[in-house]
């Protein structure tokens, strides 16, 4: 379970290449801070905060993001 409202530091992305490139392009770049602000009622997707934007990410997509 991902704890809500905690700031994480993105280390790297590890997933399908095109999808990860789109995530990078959306601002999820290594070194950035990311916060999981909400989880949808079914536990999926997660709502994350990145560079001032709220994005809905599925858990499987969020799992590609390695944080420290």
């Amino acid at each position, binding site marked *: 379970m991902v704890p809500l409202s905690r700031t994480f530091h993105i280390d790297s992305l590890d997933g399908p290449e095109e999808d990860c*490139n789109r995530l990078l392009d959306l*601002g999820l770049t290594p070194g950035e801070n990311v916060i999981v602000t909400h989880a*949808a009622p079914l536990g999926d*997707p997660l709502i994350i905060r990145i*560079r*001032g934007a709220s994005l*809905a990410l599925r858990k499987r997509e969020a799992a590609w993001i390695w944080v420290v």
Partner: protein
Amino acid sequence: MSCHPPEVESSSVHTEDQSICLVGMPNAGKTTLMNALTGGNFKTANYPGVTVSLLRGRTKPEFGPVRNLVDLPGVHSVIAPSPEEELACQVIEGKHSRVKPDAFILVVDATQLERHLKFAGLVARQAKPTVIALTMMDLLPRTRQVVDPARLSETLGVPVVPVDPRTGKGVGDLVVALDRAARKASGPTPVNALAQLPHEPVAAFMQVRDLLRRSGSVAHSNEVDSVTSRIDGIVLHRYLGFPVFFVVLMSLFAAIFWAASPFMDLVDEGFKFAGSLLTSIAPQSVIVRFLAEGIIGGVGVVAVFFPQIMILFFLMTLLEDSGYLARGAALVDRPLSFLGLHGRSFVPMLSGFACAIPAVFAARSIPARRERLLTIWILPLMSCSARLPVYSLLLAALLPAAAWKAGLSLAAIYISSLLVGALVAGMAARIFLKYRTPSLLAMELPAYRVPRWKPILKMTWARGFSYLQRAGVPIMTVSAVLWLVSNFGSTPDRFIAPTPKDQSYAAKLGHRMEPALRPMGVEWRVGVGLISAFAAREVFVSSMAIVFHVESSNEETQKEGLLQQMRTATFPGTDQLIFTPSSIVGLIVFFFFSLQCFSTVAVVRKEMNSWRLAGLQLLFYTGLGYALSVLTVQTLRAFGVA
């Protein structure tokens, strides 16, 4: 109706294809700015639907010489783009055949400068006159950020004008800045920092951050906007999220069905009156009857749904503008992606309950072709409002005494249509599309904003009018042809002559179809009704009234008269009743599945650019409807239901 007098072609030195393009990421306020620049004088250019559309318009006179404006769909990312994003990128890069930008208004959300300025790199590289319209300045305090437009402009080398498109503040300055940029551009192209941004995202973001630091902008960009966060706490709450969602949906349906009905009656009465007025001039003339019944009646068939579709567009625009629609899509993403659909399939499916045509257009925002195709594939199952009059007639015939039973059955039909749609999607995804993994969701949830009525009403009108243009012509053509086919036939002395309905080509076709209709438990007259329903499903009711010789112009008495006729109608030459419980249920099953709407077929063909796909869909659903209808009737009869 006509926003654009003919001078569009003649007056300006620009051709229609030379335009100022409004570009930016989604939810930056582009369309609201478009509204402010044009005074609402814009129209969707063949792109109706609820998603961001390509809007064309001209600047208001108060902003100096009139210029053409195009509002391009918002772009999240140029990587793995949706059709809308692809279209916008093509236009920006000058690769689109019709729309050639000669200047850009780049709309940038001040609360998300890093992401929006990174996108700006793509636009700045085109070396066309560009100004940045900085929106959402009023939201900066909510996220505790500070932006200095003047210093930002200096650092970027691009004019930055803060605007509030919702109030019109700063819009005049924006036009002045654009003019100045255009004049400068006639000399050597000025070098700006944005054009130097690398393509590679990580490096580009670093450079943007550096530029922002130099411009003195303080971006605590991860500070969560307190208002939005608080609302999301309820809307996405583990226990409250779905109840809120259902209340929103129920209100939407209530508005579409109940609030629209007095307006629909009014439109219907109006067209009936116009038709009867025309007929009264020369009741015997075939041409007058064709104009009154075929043409005016045909237009009426489309127009009667107009209030409902306007209410749908209005509420969808309202939900979209307030920010809730994206949350709704996020809420249902999990079940939808399990079925091989996408969170974004939610909006088309919802629209499908009013009409499949705007729903097909709304599927444009779904990025992956596979998921878009699957969404469009199941849209004909969503119980569109054209089925409502048919169900209401058939249920009244099936359950004459108990209105509440009919109401309950109707609710069951609606819910079933969603469940069957889910079943078809899940099966098709696994069997035919070799569904393995869903495409990326990564959907932005915009900050909540109090909606502004004027832009929403203007937008609703633009979308509704465009729908009428797109859907109106095919429906009118089909209904005119069907009128001719059901009022003309061969007589002994002439190959084509006006004939009574029961000797027309349609009747002949109905007779030919008799062997196929018998297993459904009905005969040729119902066949005529079924054929004519391909113009629009609800035409079934009026053509049934015609073939069963119900003489009444008033809708209520027409339905009552038809019900009377249906109770006593027998197969010709026998005393065997046509409309028995089993055959009525069979007809309901047929309407549930069958794709009886040529307009939908035409729109799907255009949208997926494939006759094969549209044809396959028509055959699949109509075939399925027929097979299941026969199966239902025969099974019921085998179990002793009349």
